[in-house]
């Protein structure tokens, strides 16, 4: 009965060997996706590189300017401020969030009573919308009588803090909700990594009378290496691409006082879609790409070797 289906495709199809039919099916399945990846991923990647060498403003014809955009970036004071901010987001955000998440997961792993409930408390912020939560945090940072944090400070007789209005406090204030929102994800991944370590390792160590700290240093952390590598790379990429929080917490004064919070992606957004300097913006995206590539490679190298 089913043989009829096979032959219904005509003489050409019927004459093909099973293996050849498989090849035809495979390319048929891949046709639309290949078209998609070529058109929506590869072609735009090449175009971004091309645009970075032009002075295109979206309205005229793009003109080739060589590396002029990159020279302009090199000489741009704002760019270096932005670059510094981006590095700060990465350099503070990644270690702080990972150490916090590991500490929480390490202890939560041993807790039985209400384990699921406590884990849910940490995980819930991961399910929120960054753009919405930025406004909640912005509200917390307001001066008295609106802002909760300043209200709390003043009830203890402590001085008011400017938070988002200060050039030194604005960046950490923007970073806090970003760390907060991603923490639950990292905790859950760490917990899964801890669960995957076979119990026998710990039992053997206990029998040998090894201290808790040594077990942590010699067994837990080395065996968690794949998890740690994944989270370091994953969260670094996240912090390097920070945007939603900054855009929403500093709207009205995008990038904060004196660009104190402006990350690279916000600069790209403004250059492209407020100033319409597409070529210059494309050059900035190329820099972002190179930084991301360099940071990922460096981390993979360092973490693999150790």
């Amino acid at each position, binding site marked *: 009965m089913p043989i009829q289906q096979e032959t219904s495709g005509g003489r050409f199809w019927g004459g093909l060997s099973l293996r050849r039919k498989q090849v035809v099916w*495979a390319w048929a*399945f891949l046709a639309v996706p290949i078209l998609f990846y070529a058109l929506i*991923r590869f072609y735009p990647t090449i*175009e971004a590189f091309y*645009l970075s060498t032009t002075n295109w403003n979206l309205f005229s014809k793009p003109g080739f300017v060589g590396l002029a955009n990159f020279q302009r970036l090199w000489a741009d004071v704002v760019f270096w401020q932005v670059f510094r901010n981006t590095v700060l987001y990465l350099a503070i955000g990644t270690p702080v969030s990972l150490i916090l998440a590991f500490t929480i997961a390490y202890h939560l792993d*041993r807790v039985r009573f209400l384990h699921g409930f406590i884990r849910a408390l940490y995980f819930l912020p991961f399910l929120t919308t960054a753009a919405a939560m930025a406004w909640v945090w912005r*509200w917390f940072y307001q001066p008295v009588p609106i802002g909760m944090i300043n209200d709390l400070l003043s009830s203890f007789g402590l001085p008011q803090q400017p938070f988002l209005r200060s050039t030194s406090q604005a960046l950490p204030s923007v970073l806090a909700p970003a760390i907060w929102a991603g923490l639950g994800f990292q905790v859950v991944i760490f917990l899964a990594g801890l669960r995957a370590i076979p119990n026998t390792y710990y039992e053997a160590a206990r029998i040998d009378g090894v201290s808790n700290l040594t077990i942590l240093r010699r067994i837990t952390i080395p065996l968690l290496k794949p998890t740690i590598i994944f989270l370091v790379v994953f969260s670094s990429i996240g912090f390097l691409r920070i*945007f939603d929080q900054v855009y929403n917490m500093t709207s*009205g004064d995008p990038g904060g006082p004196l660009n104190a919070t402006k990350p690279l992606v916000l600069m790209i957004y403004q250059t492209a879609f407020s100033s319409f300097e597409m070529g210059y913006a494309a050059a900035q995206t190329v820099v972002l790409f190179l930084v991301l590539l360099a940071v990922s490679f460096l981390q993979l190298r360092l973490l693999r070797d150790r």
Partner: protein
Amino acid sequence: MPALSLTMPNRFQPGRVAIWLLLLAGGLVMITPLLFMFSTSLKDASEVYDLRLVPAHPTLDNYVTVLSDGRFLRWFGNSLGIATAVTLSNVFFDSLVGYTLAKFQFRGRYIVFLAILSTLMIPTEMLVIPWYVMARNFGWLDTYWGIMFPGMMTAFGTFLMKQFFETVPDDFLEAARIDGLNEFSIFWRIAMPLVTPALSALAIFTFLSNWTAFIWPLIVTTSKELYTLPVGLSSFAVESQIQWELIMTGAALATLPTLTVFLVLQRYIVRGVVMAGLKG
């Protein structure tokens, strides 16, 4: 896993209790922003500055105001429709490609796989300018399709599904082949049901990231009717800067669906996130 405390139930350990209390306190701090967001959304304008967690006179007026505006319902619907459509597309295409790369032998397979995987290295921000140009040329600016087209397939999802399809035994597929099923039916009716846990992991991840997506919808839309919820909320907050109770209501509306779904399907969502995270 160090479960020693379990085996010694009779020994009271003050250290353990202290750590438990610290963990609980930390968890409560984590949800403080959410609690205050919901609490403020239930207060009327005169009470916003009263920072008690439980409103003295809880009211749903803010929700009535925000929802009767009409725009929020529209944005909510846009986000829901877009995130659902993109998720369905990813579940179908990422699986189809992952399955083909895992289960078919043909020349060029490895190159296709590497090419798709290599797109993971390209940050979206690098592509938004070319995408914008493309959308402008094709008349996709300010359309639903314009918001959706870049995310219809992802390398991450393809990789995830390929990993899972590799665990499906060839015997099942071979048996179906002998029964005369065509290759698409084998994929759709035999292989897909075998990887349901992976499919739900992919669906959860895709839906969540599209529900919260901000930068691309912000770029590609200009008319307010087409905003997604995060973009709409952002514009709404700017225009009504002082009305914190309304902003908090809007934020609560953006957060409620994901939180509700989580509370119902907690176990599956955590497992799904772990799967997607560890495999990806």
